[in-house]
């Protein structure tokens, strides 16, 4: 009997030590569950899909997997998604974009082999079908049929295109009238985006941030590794630009001080996740950094981190990985187990969309939530 009680005491000691180590006051379990939404919605258009693009245009949200889909912005999340017809191609096409610029919605339509571009399609309203730009635009004199458009971006109502040339370089063009003109930015690294802030365009290639006009740029070596994401905060009194790098660092600068960048390591570099996407949430004063694959797959390339800013300064409130200032849980639950492809913030609706790669999991690749996280991630 004495032995039995000794065993019980030992068990209790083990139990208490284990329980104590498993308890986290900063992590609400029942509250997290209350933020969940149904994830195995196999009827979602984006079920087990990788969503690569998102925009809002003329009363509709547009999302792109291989083809584009759209739903009215007034619909409930997930309600009414339908394939976008692409002019003479109907619904049989691959596309990059669409993006909205200058009152038009543009898409780069590609063939199935994804090596050449069939056309740049556009429409002027959600009730009008897309049509190919005619005559077909050239890219610095190179015919459209010979270029491989990798991405379309919109900034300050200008359309930009990233083209991979025959030397495997990524070249940034902008639509200048009826043709695309080289911006002068070209290199071996992908160009992750173009934003407009404080009267300048901002983009990045390699470890360098470029700012200036469409063909006149100032370069500043900013990051310690390849820049993989860029976004801007144009809502604060002091404009800010943010870039994220392959080595999990996020950098911020005031647009008034474009050579003064402060960086922070958003997560431990051991897990080798790149900052695949960035978005600024003005009401939270946070930058959300999405984790994506650098190259090959590992199980740690998931989810996103929320980085809180210091007021309107270009500095982060946390400085140590894992501090409570960095590891917010507001958007944590449902969507954190997928690779992040991108974000879209609808400022009018204060709604955040997350574009994810769900091809390897039985989940939807597109989710949305109120900016304050009140309704949790909802399957689109």
């Amino acid at each position, binding site marked *: *009997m004495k032995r*039995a*009680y000794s*065993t*019980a005491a*030992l*068990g*209790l000691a*083990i*139990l208490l030590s*284990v*329980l*104590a*180590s*498993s*308890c*986290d*006051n*900063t*992590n*609400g*379990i*029942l*509250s*997290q*569950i*209350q*933020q*969940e*939404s*149904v*994830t*195995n919605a196999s009827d979602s258009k984006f079920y087990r899909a990788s969503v690569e693009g998102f925009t809002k245009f003329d009363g509709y949200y547009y999302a792109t997997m291989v083809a584009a889909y759209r739903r009215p912005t007034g619909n409930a999340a997930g309600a009414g998604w339908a394939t976008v017809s692409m002019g003479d191609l109907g619904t049989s096409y691959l596309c990059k974009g669409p993006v909205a610029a200058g009152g038009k919605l543009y898409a780069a339509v590609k063939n199935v082999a994804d090596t050449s571009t069939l056309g740049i399609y556009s429409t002027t309203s959600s009730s009008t079908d897309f049509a190919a730009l005619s005559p077909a635009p050239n890219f610095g004199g190179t015919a459209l049929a010979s270029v491989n458009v990798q991405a379309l971006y919109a900034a300050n109502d200008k359309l930009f295109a990233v083209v991979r040339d025959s030397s495997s370089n990524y070249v940034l063009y902008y639509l200048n009238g009826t043709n695309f003109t080289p911006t002068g930015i070209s290199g071996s690294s992908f160009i992750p985006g173009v934003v407009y802030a404080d009267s300048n365009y901002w983009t990045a290639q390699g470890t360098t941030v470029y700012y200036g006009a469409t063909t006149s740029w100032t370069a500043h070596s900013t990051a310690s590794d390849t820049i993989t994401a860029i976004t801007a905060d144009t809502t604060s009194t002091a404009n800010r630009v943010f870039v994220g790098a392959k080595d999990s660092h996020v950098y911020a600068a005031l647009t008034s001080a474009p050579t003064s960048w402060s960086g922070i390591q958003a997560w431990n570099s051991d897990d080798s996740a790149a900052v695949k996407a960035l978005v600024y949430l003005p009401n939270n004063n946070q930058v959300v950094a999405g984790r994506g694959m650098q190259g090959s797959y590992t199980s740690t390339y998931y989810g996103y981190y929320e980085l809180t800013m210091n007021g309107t300064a270009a500095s982060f409130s946390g400085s140590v990985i894992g501090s*409570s200032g960095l590891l917010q849980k507001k958007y944590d*639950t*449902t969507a954190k187990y997928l690779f992040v492809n991108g974000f879209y913030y609808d400022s009018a609706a204060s709604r955040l969309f997350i574009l994810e790669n769900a091809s390897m999991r039985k989940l939807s690749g597109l989710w949305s939530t109120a900016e304050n996280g*009140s309704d949790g991630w909802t399957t689109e």
Partner: protein
Amino acid sequence: MKPSTAAVLGLALILVAGPAGRLAAQESAGSQAGKATSKPSATIGSGADLGNDTPFTVGSQLISIAVAGQTPLFTFGGDATTTETKLYLGGSFTFGYQYFVARSLSIGGALSGSYNLSIGGYSFFTLPLTFKTAYWWSILPFEFSVNAEIGGYMMRYDGNGMLGPITKAGGGAYYRISSGWSLGFEANYWFVPEIHTGDSTKFTRFGNFLETGLTAVYHL
């Protein structure tokens, strides 16, 4: 070793070791008294002696095993904007021991484990360890009980753990199928506070569950 596994082993050690000691002592005493205690083994037959009207006398003991459905009712508290639990109907088991300190009044303990799947596809476990007091009475061959429990739990969800207090209240109705066994239904209300402090107070929630299921009671 994952914390949850170690925790389960630890809890099992505690619960098994306590009754085991008592049982050993009881068997020893019974043997010395000339095996005066009859072993309840046969299925109850017509006219069988089920003992007196209130078999829950001082010093008697019982062990119970329950398998139940775990219904999430609602969750409130903290900064919750909804009372939805976002949990599906789950299941639970309970292993309990009770010792009668007065006629019909028992004290004891219970180890439970419940599982629910969240609507997001994650597993939610709760492992309560409780002190239990119950009042039993019988109208043979039926037996009834009402009980209250208080204790602590360990909660696991998506790789995160939490400790907290828990209370349960409920009752049951059983049919005495033999001199040793009763089989019946039990229903218990679980009140599961998840308390957070400081800046994390907003995460505080109060979970409410209803456990209903089958219980087998072995009268020692």
